[in-house]
């Protein structure tokens, strides 16, 4: 019964034996440490072409979030986890809508707004 979960498995539950799980936390820690150090190094380094730094930081952050999901939350695309995976996909979809939608709308409003000096002139 430990591995077969007829109604699916809740996230964060063990997949394998305890030793495998302990190893998963250690591997996750190693990956997370490397990615964190790489992020802080990249943000301060002059070795990298400046405009590329934000892209690199975004890639490193997304990679680290993936590491946390897989090694700490034990999330996978296994059939008994399809509920958890679909919920995550929907959560990420809504988050992306909120963030990129806000940025798009506010940039558009900024673009269409009259320059401040003209606005003050009109109010006079």
């Amino acid at each position, binding site marked *: *019964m430990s591995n*077969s*979960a*007829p*109604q*699916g*498995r*809740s*996230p*964060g*539950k*063990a997949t394998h034996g*305890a030793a495998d*799980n*302990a190893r998963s*936390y*250690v591997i*996750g*820690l190693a990956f*997370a*440490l490397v990615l*964190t150090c790489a*992020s*802080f190094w990249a*943000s*301060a380094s002059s070795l990298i072409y400046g405009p590329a730094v*934000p892209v690199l*930081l*975004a890639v*490193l*952050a997304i990679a*680290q*979030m993936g590491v*946390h*999901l897989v090694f*700490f*939350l034990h999330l996978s695309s296994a059939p008994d986890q399809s*509920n*958890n995976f679909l*919920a*995550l996909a*929907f*959560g990420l979809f*809504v*988050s*992306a809508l*909120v*963030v990129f*939608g*806000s*940025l798009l709308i*506010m940039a558009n409003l900024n673009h269409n707004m009259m320059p401040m000096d003209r606005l003050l002139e009109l109010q006079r």
Partner: protein
Amino acid sequence: MMSAIAVSQRAVEDDIPLSMRGPAPASVVAGFGFWLFLLSDIILFAAFFAAYAVLSGETAGGPSGLSLFHKQRVFIETLFLLFSSVTCGFGSLAVQRGNRPRTCLWMIATLLLGGVFLALELTEFSGIVATGAGPSRSAFLSAFFALVGAHGAHVTFGLAWLVVMLLQLGTFGFEPMVRRRFVCFALFWHALDIVWVGVFTIVYLGAR
């Protein structure tokens, strides 16, 4: 003999359609429900992130992020939170095995590491406010304190929850109810670390 029974039971379970197998066990329901709550919490953080991304340039003549933030301090904070996430993971393994001393050991380590993270964050906040750059100084600072403060409030709540869980472990032992709550706490704590990855990348490393 036992394994033969187990195999035949599994075969029967596979024959019954999923919709007719009856309710899932409480551990699955509680874990999945808490996972849904966490995702809605992450959407809440997405709104704070969106506000910060829109307002991060609006300093109204006040200090910018680059002059306020110390990357070394944030790096140390990040390490404390990361290690507390790992000790929490080992703690939840100890809960699965029903090992009380180890559970206490790892969870108290989580409590201490999380407490140091919170203390570092609070001293950072008080330092920034002391220079006259409080949340009311500019839209950028309002968004900063809202986003990082929301994460800090979650960490504070998580630490209080962990203290309650340790007391419940002492009172009830490893009841199924207590185990379920430990699983939910571990999910919460790992999710906070995931949000912090976004915070340190966008707020501190992306500071202009």
